[in-house]
């Protein structure tokens, strides 16, 4: 397997301009002769489908939700970064580029990140023009706030619902194209296999989630924008339906899977209350603009109500350890610091796995009205879930699985190692390295969808003869379809005793315990023993109700869990092989004297991309060296 990143030559500031000029174009009259499939309708998929249809390509878009408006991008709360420098505080494309590479602990590709920073400003322009109601100042201009890992205010926001508003902007652009007949939308359709003909991606097989029909769709190119695999931990901030099936099936058809161990644990989520828990809810990072994180200095105080712990007995540990970034330290660092405090026995709440996020000082300084204006909906959401009023008592928070930086390997054109298969947004690996900064996921999803793929897809399609698409009754297509039906029948034939969720929970426990915030060689080896055992039990003891030819939510879950049981194993294998700590990947064997991640640039300054070698065979680890030409490879310091 060859990993050719196709990074253009020249100075970093000019690479994208040069590349856009060098890419071949498809003539306007020929565009309608090409069909592109977009799987997923979130920020990346929705934006891509709409933008490519506007260009004139024939587009089909698929989502498992009942409407493209419900993709999980909608749940992003805090904001979206852009290097507008509207606030004159020293921001620039270069600074956003630098912050993102540094935030990712120097494990991302420089050229991709620079392009991301360059197009960030176009995204804000585009969204405002669509009618996205961003927060504004009294003069009518756009407001900004700060997010972790940055010392400038560059985050644009729409209350605590930025993802919702950006997604609705993309959704409306998409619906416009659907209304014009330029995009055919397939809601309640789940992609279950990639069709590959002679090594080239030519279509997908889907299951219609209402009728159960297994159907093939052929095209000239396929774009996966299916999000991350964070639900491998069972409990996460992802939606219940979020899954890794599309990217996993592509991996098993030859797409390299890069850095699966780079998974982000978000520091501020509502803590687990019991075994019944089905998902975890994020409390936006933006709250750290005005909230202060603390635990009691002494273990003995942990049982007391927060109000009875005087100021001098509180440990504002982020402010103490990272004075220059304070409560806005990056996510990986903040999460580990919370774990450390709880490991020391200083955690709060019934389970002892929690820390306070306290707004008392800000309410005193700014008044409750101001805090309500900024975060009202988040405070309400917190109260609904916990039955506690965060204006009166501090929030209790704890880290939870949130985002996956790893994903399918892509080159500079966002094409995977399978020609014709493009991967966008969280589903790819390219921009966030080993840790993503807050408010950068929305930026990347929309950058890929609005401003990268519309250019790069043309470069690929221009090399294909118009009208050379394979037919839907091609033997390869039929064989792929049959393999999907075969897998569904296999799931029904087990007739065991346990529910799909049972296996998912079991997997989640192993993943969180051994491959969560702290990883060790022994723990990862243990996980690599346990996961195949759970998988074995799954294939012998799963029970599915009903039939495949109807609405069957248990079948949908079972298919996704079957893939998570394999993804989890690759994740642990990657974590075991990356013998360093970097960003969110924390190997306890590699840490500095004061508990910070210790990178090994000599041996691991690379992307690890895994190649599937068949069931029962070990996958092969390839590497793409990362070179830092524009930035100096430095140790991260947020102190």
């Amino acid at each position, binding site marked *: 397997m060859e990993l050719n990143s196709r990074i253009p030559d020249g100075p970093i500031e000019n690479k994208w301009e040069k590349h856009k000029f060098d890419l071949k174009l498809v003539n306007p009259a020929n565009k309608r002769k090409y069909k592109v499939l977009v799987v997923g309708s979130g920020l990346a998929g929705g934006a891509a489908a709409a933008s490519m249809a506007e260009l004139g390509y024939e587009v089909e878009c698929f989502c498992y939700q*009942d409407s493209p408006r419900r993709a999980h991008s909608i749940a992003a709360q805090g904001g979206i970064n852009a290097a507008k420098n509207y606030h004159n505080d020293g921001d620039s494309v270069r600074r956003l580029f630098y912050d993102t590479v540094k935030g990712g602990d120097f494990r991302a590709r420089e050229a991709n990140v620079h392009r991301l920073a360059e197009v960030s400003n176009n995204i804000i322009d585009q969204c*405002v023009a669509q009618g996205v109601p961003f927060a504004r100042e009294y003069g009518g201009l756009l407001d900004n706030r700060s997010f972790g890992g940055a010392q400038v205010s560059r985050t644009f926001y729409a209350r605590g*619902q930025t993802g919702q*508003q950006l997604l609705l902007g993309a959704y409306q652009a998409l*619906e416009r194209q*659907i209304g014009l007949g330029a995009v055919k939308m397939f809601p309640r359709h789940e992609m279950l296999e990639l069709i590959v003909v002679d090594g080239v991606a030519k279509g997908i097989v889907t299951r219609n989630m209402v009728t159960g029909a297994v159907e093939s769709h052929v095209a000239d190119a396929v774009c996966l924008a299916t999000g991350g695999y964070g639900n491998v931990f069972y409990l996460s901030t992802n939606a219940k339906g979020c899954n890794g099936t599309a990217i996993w099936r592509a991996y098993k058809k030859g797409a390299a899977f890069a850095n699966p161990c780079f998974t982000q644990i978000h520091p501020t989520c509502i803590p687990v209350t019991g075994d019944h*828990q089905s998902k975890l809810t994020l409390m936006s990072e933006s709250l750290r603009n005005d909230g202060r994180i603390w635990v009691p200095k002494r273990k003995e105080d942990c049982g007391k109500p927060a109000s009875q712990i005087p100021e001098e007995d509180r440990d504002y540990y982020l402010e103490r350890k990272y004075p220059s970034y304070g409560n806005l330290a990056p996510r990986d660092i903040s999460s580990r610091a919370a774990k450390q405090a709880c490991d020391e026995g200083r955690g709060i709440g019934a389970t002892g796995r929690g820390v306070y996020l306290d707004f008392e000082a800000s309410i005193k300084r700014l008044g409750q009205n101001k805090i309500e204006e900024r975060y009202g909906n988040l405070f309400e*959401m917190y109260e609904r879930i916990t039955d506690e009023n965060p204006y009166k008592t501090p929030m209790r928070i704890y880290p939870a699985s949130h985002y996956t930086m790893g994903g399918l390997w892509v080159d500079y054109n966002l094409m995977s190692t399978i020609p014709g298969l493009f991967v966008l947004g969280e589903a790819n690996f390219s921009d966030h390295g080993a840790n993503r900064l807050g408010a950068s996921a929305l930026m990347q999803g929309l950058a890929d969808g609005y401003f990268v793929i519309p250019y790069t897809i043309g470069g690929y399609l221009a090399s294909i003869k118009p009208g050379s698409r394979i037919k839907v009754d091609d033997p390869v297509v039929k064989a792929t379809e049959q393999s999907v039906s075969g897998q569904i029948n296999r799931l029904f034939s087990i007739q065991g005793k346990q529910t799909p969720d049972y296996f998912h929970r079991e997997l989640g426990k192993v993943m969180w315990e051994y491959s969560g915030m702290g990883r060790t060689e022994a723990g990862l080896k243990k996980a690599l023993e346990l996961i195949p055992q759970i998988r074995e039990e799954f294939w012998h003891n799963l029970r599915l109700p009903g039939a495949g030819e109807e*609405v069957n939510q248990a079948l949908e879950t079972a298919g996704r869990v079957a893939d998570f049981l394999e993804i989890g194993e690759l994740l642990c294998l990657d974590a075991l092989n990356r013998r360093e700590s970097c960003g969110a990947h924390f190997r306890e064997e590699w840490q500095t004297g004061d508990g910070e991640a210790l990178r090994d640039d000599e041996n691991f300054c690379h992307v690890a991309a895994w190649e599937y070698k068949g069931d029962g065979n070990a996958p092969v680890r390839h590497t793409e060296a990362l070179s830092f030409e524009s930035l100096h490879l430095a140790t991260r310091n947020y102190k």
Partner: protein
Amino acid sequence: MSKHLNLTLHVWRQKNATCDGKFVEYPAENISPDMSFLEMLDIVNEGLIRKGEDPITFDHDCREGICGTCSMVINGRPHGPKERTTTCQLHMRSFKDGESITLEPWRAEAFPVLKDLMVDRGALDRIIAAGGFVSVPTGSAQDANALPIPKENAELAMDAAACIGCGACVAACPNASAMLFLSAKVSQLSLLPQGQPERYTRVRDMVAQMDAEEFGTCTNHGECEIACPKGIKMENIARMNRDFIKASLTYRPAVAGGGGAG
């Protein structure tokens, strides 16, 4: 730790759009008050699967009140008893031990039942496709700060834009009207300068689509506002009606454009 609850569920079961449905009774036992409503249903469903019975089908996804997927009528109220709260954010502490709970799908001509509590809300997407957008192809935007927008207008637009498209307003309305949903989008875009060029064609096209989808008409009952989990106000309907009347009075059929020189 508060006491666990034992409840009786009366659930609408319907195999598909063409079959008749009926209520079936299920016990929900040993339910923690800290559970969400959907987690309670998860437990009931896992029990049903283990017994070899068909679990209750219901739509859900983000489980944090923003995606708008969850949709059921609980004891006669869309999204249940708690104001401004989606079903997924409803917690069992809102119920008493021994209580009976009735679960039904959204009921509206325009929302056919697909199975049990799951309905097809594609009609709402088609209303947006008819005009709920600003026609701005990617790449054609000016600088975001080139056009200041009064903060008050931006806030009012955001209030309207908070709609999650769940359809509770339709389910609550005695006429099954989609006016609150439609007016929220019309209002958002009418309040912003970017929405002005298409302001009057938008409202006409969206209303025409709503009528084609067999939603009922609005007779100002106000049930929609009470049921809305996001606090969308009826003032949006008033704003929309103003635009719609003006649009109807000033409507001129589009004239086909010429070919241009060259």
